[in-house]
């Protein structure tokens, strides 16, 4: 039984018809599959089948530990969306509900290798010299969330120093507690700076810079 019904599958096909380049959906599960691991694997395979430019690769988080470490995968289910290069675009937890949109946009952005950001943002990202880790906590029932995830993934594609994760909070309750997530979207940058709610691009950029200033002060 497919996860994507015919109507959605057809729409996805249309969305992906003009993909700018090949994209690999590298998915991590394990032999005894976690909650939603099986579904995420199936989803990745179904989506990959909808475009000639897409390929899925399934790894075992335990057996293929080296591969996971190489890609910085620390929990499952995980999907790394990799294009001409690995831009650091990750989705943890199943991208269902509104987050399915985030997956498709990650694919499109990575395929193009070119983010849709303003000149100001791109110029500011040129100045970044330290690694930046953006985690966007979401729930599948949050219509405001994909905007934040898509923006974070765009930032990752724009800068080799930025990596960005979607984290589906209900599948990683321990992380929701650790990062005090009581509402979504909640964006955490470099463990120190956080943003409540859906924020526009200039604000996220400002917070990113704030997070980096914080690290410089500590050094």
């Amino acid at each position: 039984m497919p996860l994507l019904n015919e109507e959605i599958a057809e729409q996805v096909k249309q969305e992906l018809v003009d993909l700018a380049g090949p994209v690999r959906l590298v998915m991590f599960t394990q032999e005894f599959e976690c909650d939603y691991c099986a579904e995420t694997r199936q989803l990745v395979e179904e989506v990959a089948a909808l475009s000639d430019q897409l390929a899925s690769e399934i790894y075992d988080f335990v057996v293929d530990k080296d591969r996971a470490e190489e890609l910085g995968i620390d929990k499952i289910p995980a999907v790394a969306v990799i294009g001409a290069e690995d831009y650091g675009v990750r989705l943890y937890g199943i991208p269902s509900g509104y987050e399915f949109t985030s997956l498709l946009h990650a694919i499109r952005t990575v395929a193009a290798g070119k983010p849709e950001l303003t000149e100001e943002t791109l110029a500011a990202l040129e100045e970044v010299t330290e690694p930046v880790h953006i985690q966007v906590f979401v729930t599948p029932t949050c219509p405001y969330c994909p905007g934040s995830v898509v923006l974070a993934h765009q930032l990752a594609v724009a800068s080799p120093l930025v990596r960005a994760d979607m984290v589906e909070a209900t599948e990683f309750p321990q992380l929701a507690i650790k990062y005090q997530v009581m509402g979504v979207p909640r964006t955490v940058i470099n463990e120190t700076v956080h943003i409540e709610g859906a924020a526009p691009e200039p604000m996220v950029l400002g917070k990113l810079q704030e997070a980096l200033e914080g690290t410089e002060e500590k050094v």
Partner: protein
Amino acid sequence: MLDFKLTQPQQEVQPRPVAEQSDQVYDLIIIGGAPAGLTAAIYAGRAALKSLLLTGPFPGGQVTTTDMVENFPGFPDGINGAELAQRIQRQAERFGTQIVMDTVTKVDFSTPPFTVRTDSQTYRGRTVIIATGAVPRRLGVPGEAEFFGRGVSTCATCDGFFYKDKRAVVVGGGDSAIDEGLFLTKFAREVIVVHRRDQLRATKIYQERAFANPKMRFVWDSVVEEVLGEKTVTGVRVRNVKTGETSVIEADGMFVYIGMVPGTKLFAGQVEMDEWGYIVTDRRQRTSVPGVFAAGDVQSPDFRQIVVAAGSGAMAAIEAERLLAEQSGTT
């Protein structure tokens, strides 16, 4: 049960242009990228007006948060709200209206061409349509802003999960308050509805469901005066409006549903507004300033329907076109 939605993330629009010729004057500038503004853009495009739409920070507006729109004509099986907004936007783009994601910070309607400023640009238009909609009203009490996203929320469907086995306060007595409150009972141990009157305003069917739900409790005739807590929310202080007594309700979070406020701060002193801040328009969507029109929730709290917003957007654009035709005929 898993579902997969294909929608437009709210930030995906063309980034603003880097440099705009300052001498350029648009026929029409539309402020707001939700159904009213987008529909105006369709009509403006088809009328071959040189038009610009500035979306604001969240294109699509309120409708994008509606899971299923079941009353918009032409969609017999319903349509996801974000998808509907996306389709209207595509339609507007097809007819040539320039859609830019930028937020207006200042306007000057004293003399045409009217000036519309954003952080980085100044635009000028012979006519303007205001379609900035409405946003959820906040209580404006201490603690509300500080705890927003950390225990204070306006979206139970987004954040309900985090209240598993916890206690949540819902403020309000209308359909949204009760509907979202009922949703919260799927997760929360107890949902306490704080309402300033002694009965609900919500539709009968919601009331029946609410009163039948063993997890729901009601605190009548009361208003929230403060959100309490240090790192996280621990409760709210309420005042009974009849007796004046205050008390504390222990809770882990608060969800606020007390209606909407029009997005009109920007236009204070520029166009006439009513006592609630809605822009006053006549039957032809004309504001007190000739050449400036308003459409959608920003000019009427009476209907709050997508189809009405779209309809008034069309009216505003047609009126703008007529005015421009008259002006060019006389020069």
